[in-house]
Structure formats: structure tokens, C-alpha cells
């Protein structure tokens, strides 16, 4: 698989990440196990008439996509590809609730129209008048990674030279309640910065949108390169899989300046990453990200945004090492593992 050049990256997240802000300078503290995306003023990105009818996930997706294109000075990408596990949950909830409460009578169509999983990619195409390839992957914690796979293949097929790709998911009140009933989250009050020090079951809910302009060739303005990525479903020996991944990409752990590890605070499913951090990665600098964005299926897109910015800046706040090469190692429930190798170009 060939290198993907990251021309630009934009994220709306529970941290101050969008617009002209210093890179993760201060951590926004939350005292509940639910982190909410900090939404910007959408006016520069969206017609207010349009945005009034849009749910949060659509607004977040469209705004980060447009910001990304502006940063990359790109008018039309050769493809638009999104990953979202939950899709447009708010609109889905609204329409479902009305069907039941109004007993299938007199329903307004807007929520239904905007409930399909491809709405964000479609709205971007509509706004840009972009007729290019347009796809949406909805495969749980691999949704964003599938979008990256599609991107990499389009480049290899010479079908595209710049692609807009993003990961988007929202958490709604209803879904927070439902996931809580599955004991997904911490109970009671919880502070996100304590995520890795409190040994208790559950994680914290998160959400966000992260978009990228990826290119098949180097330019003068690349933030970083995505050298390689790979997913592993229910791996038997993840340590060996990591070593194989590094070997296949001719990289040693000594060359990795930073590991971005996807621990989410759940005492049970964090064990495999704890073992890796204390074992295989014991000589590496390690940073975490899920205390910043919370846990959600496309949170690896936030990790990629963080890695790209760390490489671009050569630094991550709180670490003194110069950062040129980053390995993202993340998983959800020890079932969906994902590796990404990000380097200075």
C-alpha cells in the first residue's frame, strides 16, 4: 500500500480543536462520563437557513470538511468518503419517536430525509456541487479505517489524486441512556483526566468529526504522511501483529517517537494495552487520547488528527521529545484493533 499524504486535517471534538487555536494547549475538563463536542460558530461554513434544519452530526461533518478543503486550498476533491458507525442518530431518534407517539400519522419528512447514514457525505457533495465518487462506511469501530482503505485503493487505481475523508459520530441523550444500560460508561460523576488512574469498569462517552484531505503525491504543504494502517478483528496475538506491521513497513520501535494508545479507562478491556505499554512499548513515549475525545466508534479519526498535528508541530504538549514518527495503537473491547503509522514527510 502506498503512502497517503495528509494535506490538511480538521476536527470538532470535546476539546478546543477547531479553528485557529493552539494544538491541545489545555485539556477541557468534564465532570460527567459524557464528553460533548464543542461546536463552533457555523456561519463561516454553513448557510444559516440550511444549518437550522441540520442535526449536530451533519453540521460538525460539513464544517470540518469545508475547513479541511480551505486549509488545503482545494475546491473539489476527487472523492468524498466518510466513516460513521451510528450515522445520523438524532434524526433517527426524532423520526422513530414521532412514528410511535403520533401512531404513524402526520409525520414531517425532514428527520427521515436526514436520517440516512450517507447524509454527511451527501451534504458535502451537494454544497460543493461535487459529482465525484461518494461513499460511506458504517462498520462499527472500523468505519473510519474502511474509509481509509477505500481512499488508499482509489489512489492505487489512479482514480483520484486528492480525497476528502472523515470520521463522524454523535452521542444523543437517548443513546447515552441505552449504552449506559449496557454498562458501557462509568457510573456517577467522573472526571475525564482521571480516565487512566481510576481502576473501574466502563469508559466515557464521546463524539466528534475529523476530516482530512489526503493526497497520493507529496506537496510542499503536507502536515504528515500516513505510511500505513491495518485493522485486526479479534486478534489472537496482537503483539506479534504489531511487530509484523512494523516489519512490513521497515520501521523499528526505536524509530517511533510517540505511541498514541487508545486506552479508554475500562479496567477489563484496557488490560491488553496496559500489557503492551509496559512490555513492547516500554522504551517509547506514550500519549493517550480518549480522555480528550471520549470513546466512540470513529474516535481513531481524532487520533489521526492528533498524530498529524503532533508530527506537523514536531511536538505534543506535555512531552519534550521531538516527534517525527507516531504509531497509533488502539482498540475497542479487545475486538477491533487498529494500527496507523504517521511520519513527517
Amino acid at each position: 500500500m502506498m503512502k497517503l499524504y495528509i494535506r490538511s486535517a480538521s476536527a470538532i471534538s470535546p476539546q478546543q480543536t477547531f479553528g485557529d487555536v493552539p494544538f491541545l494547549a489545555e485539556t477541557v475538563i468534564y465532570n460527567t462520563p459524557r464528553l460533548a463536542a464543542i461546536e463552533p460558530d457555523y456561519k463561516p461554513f454553513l448557510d444559516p437557513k440550511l444549518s437550522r434544519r441540520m442535526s449536530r452530526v451533519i453540521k460538525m461533518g460539513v464544517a470540518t470538511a469545508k475547513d479541511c478543503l480551505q486549509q488545503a486550498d482545494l475546491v473539489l476533491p476527487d472523492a468524498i468518503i466518510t466513516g460513521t458507525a451510528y450515522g445520523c442518530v438524532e434524526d433517527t431518534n426524532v423520526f422513530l419517536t414521532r412514528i410511535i407517539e403520533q401512531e404513524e400519522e402526520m409525520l414531517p419528512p425532514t428527520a427521515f430525509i436526514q436520517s440516512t447514514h450517507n447524509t454527511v457525505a451527501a451534504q458535502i457533495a451537494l454544497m460543493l456541487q461535487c459529482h465525484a465518487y461518494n461513499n460511506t462506511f458504517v462498520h462499527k469501530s472500523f468505519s473510519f479505517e474502511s474509509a481509509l482503505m477505500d481512499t488508499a485503493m482509489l489512489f492505487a487505481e489512479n482514480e483520484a489524486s486528492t480525497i476528502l475523508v472523515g470520521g463522524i459520530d454523535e452521542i444523543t441523550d437517548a443513546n447515552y441512556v441505552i449504552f449506559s444500560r449496557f454498562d458501557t460508561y462509568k457510573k456517577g460523576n467522573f472526571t475525564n483526566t482521571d480516565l487512566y488512574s481510576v481502576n473501574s469498569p466502563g469508559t466515557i462517552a464521546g463524539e466528534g468529526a475529523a476530516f482530512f484531505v489526503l493526497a497520493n503525491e507529496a506537496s510542499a504543504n503536507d502536515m504528515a504522511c500516513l505510511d500505513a494502517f491495518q485493522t485486526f478483528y479479534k486478534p489472537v496475538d496482537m503483539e506479534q501483529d504489531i511487530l509484523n506491521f512494523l516489519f512490513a513497513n521497515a520501521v523499528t520501535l526505536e524509530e517511533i517517537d510517540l505511541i498514541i494508545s487508545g486506552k479508554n479507562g475500562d479496567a477489563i478491556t484496557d488490560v491488553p494495552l496496559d500489557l503492551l505499554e509496559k512490555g513492547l512499548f516500554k522504551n517509547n513515549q506514550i500519549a493517550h487520547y480518549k480522555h480528550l475525545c471520549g470513546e466512540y466508534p470513529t474516535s481513531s479519526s481524532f487520533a489521526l488528527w492528533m498524530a498529524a498535528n503532533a508530527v506537523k508541530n514536531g511536538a505534543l504538549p506535555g512531552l519534550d521529545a521531538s516527534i517525527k514518527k507516531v504509531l497509533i495503537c488502539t482498540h475497542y473491547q479487545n475486538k477491533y484493533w487498529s494500527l496507523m503509522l504517521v511520519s513527517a514527510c
Partner: protein
Amino acid sequence: MSSPVYVAGLGAISAIGNNVAENLAALKSGKAGMADITYLKTKYAHEIPAAEVKFSNEQLAAITGFPAHMSRTALLSSIAAKEALDDSGVKNIEGLRIGFISANTVGGMDKSEHFYEDFLKDDQSGDLLDVINHGCGNITELVADKLGINSYVTTISTACSSSANAIFFGARLIRAGILDAVVAGGTDAFTKFTLNGFNTLMILDREFCKPFDEERQGLNLGEGAGYVVLVADKVAQQLDKELYGKLSGYDNSNDAYHQTATSPEGDGPYMAMQGALKRAGLQPSDIGYINLHGTGTPNNDQSEGTAVMRLFDGNYPPMSSTKSFTGHTLGASGGIEAVFSLLALKHGLVFPNLRFETQMKELPFSPQTELLTDQPINHVLSNSFGFGGNCSSLIFSKA
């Protein structure tokens, strides 16, 4: 295009049959699958017809070996995907990297809407088993695990073009050398969510739908699943069987006109068909049959028809919408219609467009109304267009 990708297996379940043979028999005999709504509980049961698969969830569960509380979307998927996989014989070859690329739009909504009735009264009530597999990806994963497929598994959701995109994504994974074989297509169950959604848009026909008819009044919803098994050249050579054909062309273009409506000029549909022809290295005159998207809504058929008129420019191959049999199966339609297209190719058939009476004023052609047999068909074009302007076309050719 680079190395060919062949079709080695087919699987389908729809309102007109529970397997490929039954679907083919119904297509040949002109037997449509629409009826009064029987299995879905809705106030529209006697008002709006639909094309349901003629099994209860309990019966589907018994066939698949899944528990009966499982989403109908997964039950339907499991039946058609297994049929395709068994038909292909790829499981008999040791060491193949097999993928499962499945599309759907509703996920486990059939169960979630049941859960929500209780949940809205009290957010601590409602059976959690009914929402645990709500996600589109959950449906795919349940079936992949059941089939024992794990080399590459993912889910695509681009509304009604979903499974056409899944099929050619699967083909590209083979070409990229990532997989040797892939089960690709899609599934969707009939739900209150989609029934009410399309009803609010006022595009559901109260009678059986009449695609490409001047008097068409909208679509009938259907349900089902359809899958093809795509294999690399070297796998095709190892399989001791006649292949159905090859995927020679494909395209995904966006109409970029409106969230739900297609442009009057049919720009997206035109680009999708033209792009598929270009990738296949074919001319419009090479196409022997068009399996139209043909939902029966005033907007789609006008837009798609205009695109066909622009592209084929006077030389129209026989064409029909098999949604006049199956209803619109949404995320499954591209998969089911890919199966029908391959059957047309293999058996030299053009399936009839049922209930067509009156020529559309704006079009110079009309769909095929009677079954045609012994046709010299070398290439079939299959169209799938969806909400969000997502337009995809596939071309299947003789192997």
C-alpha cells in the same frame, strides 16, 4: 480494466422467492411479490401494499440457525449470503482469503422500533436484546461470523445504491490483491421506519407500482437480500464450475442536486452509466439489457429515463425494472438486481417490466413488457440510485 473479477456464486431472497431458483422462476412466469402487508405490524396494513418475504421471523430463524429475536435484516442476509457462498464452492479451496462486504440501510431497526415503544414510556424499560444489534455493521458482523468469513469484513450504507457499491468495493479488494474471493451485496428488512419515511415523502403507490409508466404513482417497498461471490482469476480457474460472468464495469457518481430527489436532466445517473461503460471499455450499443433502477416514482423514472435517452441516443436495448416484481428493497436492491442481471446474462433473458401500460410522454422508448428468451446478451447494465445523490451502475459481462 486490469485483471478480471468473475462471479462464481449467487444468492437471493425476496418477495418472489426464497432462493435464486425460485426468484428466477417467478421472473420468468411474471409473478409479482406485492400483497397486503402481512408480517409487519402497522396501521397501513390494508392501505399500502408491500413486497414482504413470505416467512415469519421464527421461520427465518429456524432456517438460519439464528435465535428468533435476531433482526430480520440479519436473517435475510444470512440466507442469501450462505446460498451464494455454497453455490460458489470457494469454501472447498483451502487457504483462500475470503471477505464479506455487505450493505444495508436500516440495520436492526425492525427490533429497535419495537424497543422504542417501551423505551419512550420509561427509559429503563425495553428489552436490550432488541437494540444490541441496531447498528448496520452489527448485521454484517453477525452474518460474517456465521459464515466463518474474517479476512476482510465491512459495511457500506449509501441509501438505495448501497449494495451496488458493496459489490464493486469487493471487486476492487480482489484486484488490489487483498482478497481472493468476496461475498458482496446487501440486505434490508421492511420496517415501520422506512414505510413511514417513504410515506411522508408521498412516493408510495397505493396500488402495485408501475415503473416507467406515464401514470406511475410511486414505489412499493420490499425487502430481501442479494449477494454475488466474486473471485480472482486464479480462483476461477480452480473452481470446477461454470461462471455466471464477470464484473466488467462500475461507477459511483454523485448527482449533487438534492438530498432526496434526482436532477431532471439525470446527471448523476448519466455519469454513473457512462463511467461504468468507460471502465468496461464498452459502447452503449454493446449493452444487451438494462436492469433499471426504475422505482416507479415520478421523479426517478423521469430522471433515469432522461439519462438513458441522453446516453443511448436512439439505440435502446431492452430494459425493465424488476422492482415491478420485488418492490424496492432499498439497501438490498443493488444486490438482488445484480443477481437478476447475472441470470439474464447466463440464460439470455430479458425480464418483463410488469403492469406497464402507457408510454411516458418525455421518453422515446418504453420498457420490455413480455419475457424475452434466447437473447444474445453479452453485457448487462444494472442501475442503483439513492438518497444523497448516490448513483451507481454496474456492468456484468460474459466470462
